[in-house]
């Protein structure tokens, strides 16, 4: 796996630079993940199927010594990103003649930007300093430690071609920003982390996808509001329990909302459990997002934020392959996931609650893992909202791997 890559890299460096590096001395590692999909909307208003390399992500890490290391993740979504110019002929009508015909006096072309669907982003870039065997800190562009999928999002780690709806429109995965997070294991089995990060932007919070558009992603993030993040994880023999929280202001220093650090405040509390026993995998996540300043955010930004958002899912999968082939190293997992999120669970007095923001999704399908890091996926997704209109059924096929 990665060590092989490291060895190969060391060999290449040796060839390129004479005897500067002996095999094994270089601590630079390469890794990554990729996922491709075919999505066919079999029912609902969206008629067109699509095929896409949804994500291609490269990890580069470097260990300076046993304590100090650098980690990065560079992502390309939807294959290509380019800004091209489209030429449109524009005619300016100067006057209208007596018989009603327009008289063209000027004609020319205007160039407008046309962007492809792609997106390039640095998702993580941080230095990690381990101060002892059980504690340390990391700083740079970091993942917010809330929810399972935000920190662990390789395609072979979840079922279904797409990540859970909860990890998209509730916990806005991949949620990241600049910050510093300390971590430690005070007792065996307990992992704690907590820190300070740049906040969300309240100017885009609202609607069906909740916090999602409020992410600043570390690209010249407005850092007027520093948020507090924390996560506790406890490992039991057959399960891991997690509880994460994010608390911060979203005003960006806008005095109409308040220029205090926590003005336009948002509180996210989300718990998760992952259990597995003899090929049975059960996963559940649930959380609540409180926006006590939603009324002020609406008065200024008019994006229809809820005052309280709720969401959660339960997923069960079972590896049936050992029943058929006891010696197999592969896995074949039928799974089903039930999800519910409502970003307008409660709304402030100046926002009209939209029942379309209360969504239910059921995903049922099959994950075939010929290797623990490679997944072939097929699923049927049934997405509905409380209005009874705009529901969609999707048939999806996908492949993903990480290394």
């Amino acid at each position, binding site marked *: 796996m*990665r060590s092989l890559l490291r060895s190969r890299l060391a060999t290449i460096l040796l060839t390129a630079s004479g005897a500067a590096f002996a095999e094994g001395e270089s601590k630079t590692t390469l890794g990554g993940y990729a996922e491709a999909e075919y999505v066919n909307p079999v029912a609902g208003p969206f008629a067109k199927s699509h095929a896409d390399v949804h994500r291609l992500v490269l990890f580069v890490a470097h260990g300076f010594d046993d304590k100090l290391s650098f980690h990065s993740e560079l992502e390309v979504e939807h294959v290509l990103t380019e800004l091209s110019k489209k030429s449109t002929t524009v005619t300016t009508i100067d006057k209208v003649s007596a018989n009603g015909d327009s008289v063209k006096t000027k004609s020319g072309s205007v160039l407008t930007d046309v962007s492809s669907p792609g997106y390039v982003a640095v998702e993580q870039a941080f230095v990690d300093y381990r101060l002892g*065997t059980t504690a340390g800190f990391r700083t740079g562009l970091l993942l917010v430690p809330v929810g399972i999928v935000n920190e662990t999002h390789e395609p072979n780690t979840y079922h279904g071609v797409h990540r859970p709806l909860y990890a998209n429109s509730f916990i806005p995965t991949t949620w990241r920003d600049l910050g510093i997070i300390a971590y430690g294991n005070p007792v065996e089995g307990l992992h704690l982390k907590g820190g300070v990060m740049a906040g969300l932007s309240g100017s885009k919070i609202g609607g069906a996808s909740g916090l999602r558009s409020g992410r600043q992603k570390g690209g010249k993030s407005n850092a007027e509001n520093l948020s507090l993040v924390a996560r506790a994880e406890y490992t039991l*023999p057959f399960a891991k329990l997690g509880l994460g929280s994010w608390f911060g202001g979203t005003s960006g220093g806008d005095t109409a909302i308040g220029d205090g650090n926590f003005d336009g405040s948002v509180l996210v509390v989300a718990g998760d459990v992952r259990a597995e026993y003899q090929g049975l995998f059960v996963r559940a996540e649930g959380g609540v997002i409180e926006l006590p300043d939603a009324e002020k955010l609406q008065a200024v930004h008019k994006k229809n934020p809820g005052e309280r958002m709720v969401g959660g899912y339960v997923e069960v999968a079972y590896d049936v392959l050992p029943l058929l082939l006891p010696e197999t190293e592969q896995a074949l997992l039928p799974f089903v996931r039930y999800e519910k999120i409502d970003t307008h669970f409660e709304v402030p007095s100046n926002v009209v609650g939209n029942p379309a923001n209360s969504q239910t999704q059921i995903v049922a399908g099959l994950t075939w893992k010929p290797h623990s890091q490679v997944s072939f996926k097929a699923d049927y997704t049934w997405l509905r909202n409380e209005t009874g209109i705009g529901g969609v059924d999707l048939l999806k096929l996908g492949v993903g791997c990480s290394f």
Partner: protein
Amino acid sequence: MADVALDARISEKAKLALRRIFGAASRATPTLLEAKFGKRPSWTVRGESGAIVGAAMVDEVPGKSERITILVASGPDGRLKDLEVLAYRESYGGEVAQEAWRAQFRGKKPGDPLRVGRQIRNISGATISTNSVSAGVSRSLPVLAGLLGIP
């Protein structure tokens, strides 16, 4: 294939682990094993009476981006006596060092299936580490059996 060498710190940890596993009165004689996956520091261990009570070797397996250094110790019958994580260099996923997880390997003999998710429990969020350490134990047990002269 990459060879494994011990620095002073890991060497010290390995000696402490050998004493913990085989008892304070045991004496470990270092030797260098040439496994087909590379050279590995190893020991044959004798008890107070001078009889061989086991053998141990250090292996390195890949974690998510850093190596994990483990010590695999077998009893005189070639079955795993204990496993110790000598160095875990990543911030997260260190649960492979937990006693409850390591305990599952005790008594396993060369060739026993050690599939994560079946014979060996996975640790959610530490899938790469659990698979790597299991693979490290799997490949080390036959090598130690060879060192102990067990066919």
